[in-house]
């Protein structure tokens, strides 16, 4: 099986590190007993936009003939990535206070892991 490099590895790295950084900030806010601030929601929206661009780039390359190593798993992970930020906004905003921030931080950590997995199942780096 030919191993293709991930089509948007730079963008994926930016999103992953941003998610980790934002998660760290939210953990601090949770420790300080602060709710999820509105600016964090805007940052999340930016992350979601980045994820959409990432998805489009992958799908475009795919349509040109470079298929991911694990197509089904790849699509599942991509959908999970795209669904996570909006779901997280609803879940975290429903709880004012530190635990809302904690839940948001958790979701961002999951997002970071998911992005790593998305790139792995595209290149076939790690088998199931």
């Amino acid at each position, binding site marked *: 099986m030919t191993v293709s490099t991930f089509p948007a590895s730079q963008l994926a790295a930016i999103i992953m590190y941003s998610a980790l950084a934002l998660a760290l900030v939210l953990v601090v806010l949770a420790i300080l007993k602060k709710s999820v601030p509105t600016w964090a929601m805007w940052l999340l929206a930016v992350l979601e936009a980045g994820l959409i661009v990432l998805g489009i780039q992958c799908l475009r390359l795919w349509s040109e003939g470079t298929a991911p190593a694990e197509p089904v798993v790849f699509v599942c992970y991509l959908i*999970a990535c795209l669904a996570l930020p909006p779901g997280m906004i609803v879940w975290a905003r*429903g709880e004012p206070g530190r*635990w809302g921030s904690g839940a948001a931080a958790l979701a961002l950590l999951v997002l970071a892991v998911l992005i790593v997995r998305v790139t792995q199942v595209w290149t076939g780096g790690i088998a199931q």
Partner: protein
Amino acid sequence: MSESTNGDAVSRRGPGRVVIGLYAVFAIAATSRALFQLATKFSDAPIAYSLSAVAAVIYIVITVLLWRGTASALKLARTFIMVELAGVIIVGTLSFLDAAAFPRATVWSHFGEGYGFIPLILPIVGLFYLRRTMDRPATEKDAD
């Protein structure tokens, strides 16, 4: 969130946001993984993949019970979390002792190593959280 037949269940408030969130993540992750494994390569490792499916069902049940948050649901959730804890300890130990039976990873292999050991920590957190939550009457408002 605006569903409030009898208010937001106490179990969903406060730390419950994080605990239920974690269980939901594992329910989704374990279920998709198990479905994929069972559908595409069950014969590779029947024991491991069946266990993946069992773990997935346990995570789903716990997530739903914690979400419901009634006294009886939480009691039942406690039982399932104990099963989960037993599962991760037994499967974790077996995966070291009898590697041949686990040629492919499950959520619980090596005490959840592939998932940052969260599968081992999660039931312990869940039990602490339940002990704290079940002390309070389910209908009362949060006091802190």
